[in-house]
């Protein structure tokens, strides 16, 4: 059995390596032609793939999945289409440095069940743009839609002259096989999007990995904010695909002085504040008591379905279940990430207390990911930003769509959001094509005048300390 898996892994990687060898001979024009064709094929199938993913996973909303597919094709393509990813990508006569882009080699892409087709589309486009073959691991809960998305991309890539096997799909298999591929010596990079377990496995594989983990996004509504605007944006974001985006809002934090206004606005916009008893009922189905993390059975379900499963009555048309909490951590299960329209709500006595709650929430499973602030006070926006540990601080912006980039801001459009070292990631950036190239630098001789005009003998004189040496070193000759 294990021998069969090793043989299968070797075969997949041999094909990928041969594709990589062929691909590295392509120029920018040939590469761009392939990317354009794949973008068009993915875009033209956006509705079919969205419906397929929705039907197969039972998660989210098919119309919103269409929008995700649009973002993963149109927005991603628009973002990368003019980028230089082949050969010389920059030349600087002043520094004497010329940069050359080289592909990495076979990339192993892991896909989440929450965004299966859009993640496959996005990862395929950025891999092809950088001439890297991609091996896609289909999620067991979304296998059919992942396979179909990869098939559509592969056919379009071949039609535009791409190498055979530049896209390979690995049907959902055992965890052991996935780990075998991850640690295969011929894998150049792992692009892991998913839970902490998966990301940890990717980083432990011995191969380079870009893994991004979960979020727990707090959103602060400042007294200076436009409250109806803030509430409407939060609702649109949190209900998008029933809250399946890891950058979606997880808690709203306010000062008590605006509590009445904010609650009234949420209620006006069809959100329901749970009673303490109802909070307990929702907790019991939303959070696993053993792990303290969200239950997969409520991921991407609507507020009405969650309420029904929890055995509570809510008004018809309710968009979000609001849980007013007094604390953070294990004793308050809904203070953790819930990828569904359930939102924690904190009302604090003053601004400083509110910010401290934001810090606690930020560090509760979502370090380095994203945070949001609604404010019209630049000083507070800056202060809040410096205190958070987040790759993206989204100002007056729905965090789901804002973090992904390209819609509400100029961040690169991405479905893999770096969380920095706090989230055990290598970067806080939105992962895109430029992260999938090795940049070689031709360094032409440009002698450092300061170094060469300095009397090197002084380094050997122990009586000269750092201040004296620095003074001498920086002397303008």
């Amino acid at each position, binding site marked *: 059995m294990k021998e069969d898996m090793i043989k299968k892994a070797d075969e997949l990687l041999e094909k990928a390596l041969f594709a990589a060898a*062929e691909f590295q*001979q392509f120029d920018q024009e040939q590469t761009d032609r392939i990317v354009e064709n794949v973008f068009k094929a993915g875009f033209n199938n956006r509705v079919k793939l969205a419906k397929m993913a929705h039907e197969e996973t039972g998660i989210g909303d098919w119309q919103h999945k269409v929008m995700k597919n649009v973002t993963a094709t149109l927005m991603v393509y628009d973002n990368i289409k003019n980028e230089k990813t082949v050969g010389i990508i920059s030349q600087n006569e002043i520094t004497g440095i010329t940069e050359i882009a080289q592909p990495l080699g076979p990339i192993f892409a892991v896909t989440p069940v929450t965004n299966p087709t859009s993640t496959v589309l996005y990862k395929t486009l950025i891999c092809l743009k950088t001439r890297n073959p991609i091996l896609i691991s289909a999620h067991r809960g979304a296998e059919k839609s992942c396979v179909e998305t990869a098939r559509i991309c592969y056919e379009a890539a071949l039609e535009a002259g791409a190498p055979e096997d530049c896209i390979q799909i690995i049907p959902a298999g055992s965890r052991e096989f996935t780990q075998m591929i991850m640690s295969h010596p011929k894998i150049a990079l792992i692009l892991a999007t998913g839970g902490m377990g998966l990301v940890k496995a990717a980083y432990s594989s011995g191969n380079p990995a870009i893994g991004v983990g979960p979020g727990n996004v707090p959103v602060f509504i400042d007294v200076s904010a436009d409250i109806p605007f803030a509430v409407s944006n939060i609702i649109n974001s949190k209900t998008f695909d029933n809250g399946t985006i890891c950058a979606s809002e997880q808690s709203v934090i306010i000062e008590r002085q605006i509590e009445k206004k904010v609650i009234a606005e949420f209620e006006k916009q069809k959100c329901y504040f749970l009673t303490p008893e109802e909070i307990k009922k929702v907790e019991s189905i939303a959070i696993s008591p053993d792990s303290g993390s969200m239950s997969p059975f409520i991921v991407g379900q609507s507020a009405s379905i969650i309420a029904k499963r929890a055995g509570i009555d809510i008004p018809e048309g309710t968009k979000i279940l609001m849980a007013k909490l007094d604390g953070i951590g294990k004793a308050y299960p809904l203070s953790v990430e819930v990828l569904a329209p359930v939102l924690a709500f904190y009302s604090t006595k003053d601004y400083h207390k509110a910010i401290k709650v934001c810090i606690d929430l930020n560090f509760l499973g979502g370090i380095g990911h994203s945070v949001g602030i609604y404010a019209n006070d630049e000083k507070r926006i800056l202060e809040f930003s410096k205190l958070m540990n987040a790759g993206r601080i989204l100002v007056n912006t729905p965090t789901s769509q804002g973090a992904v980039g390209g819609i509400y801001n100029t961040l690169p459009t991405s479905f893999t959001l770096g969380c920095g070292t706090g989230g055990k990631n290598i970067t806080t950036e939105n992962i895109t094509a430029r992260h999938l190239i090795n940049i070689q630098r031709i360094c032409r001789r440009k002698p450092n005048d300061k170094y060469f005009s300095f009397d090197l003998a002084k380094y050997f004189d122990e009586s000269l300390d750092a201040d004296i040496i620095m003074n001498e070193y920086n002397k303008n000759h």
Partner: protein
Amino acid sequence: MVTFKHYSTEKHLICKFSGRLDTQNCLSLSEEINNKLQELKQGQGEKDKPGEKIEFDMTEVTYISSSFIRICLTTFNQCQKENFAIINCDPFLKKTFKIAGLDDLLPVS
């Protein structure tokens, strides 16, 4: 696309390729090489693999596809290990074989 030079006295076959060896061109190439190898086998009688030295001359090749890399590997597996070589690659092709991991298995020069 390919011309064969067979030195029967020296037991030496050179397959000289030219142009772009893309997937399309490799379809007929694969068959031609296979036929030639079968011919050699029959000439040698009972032996399983041709005992002759076989070289792929890449002097005039400008591009190789993954299909051609596969042809190299298949040919290598059909020959006696030490008797197969890929010769006269330009540096770019040499690197391409390197990336494919082929030069770990067989001589590429």
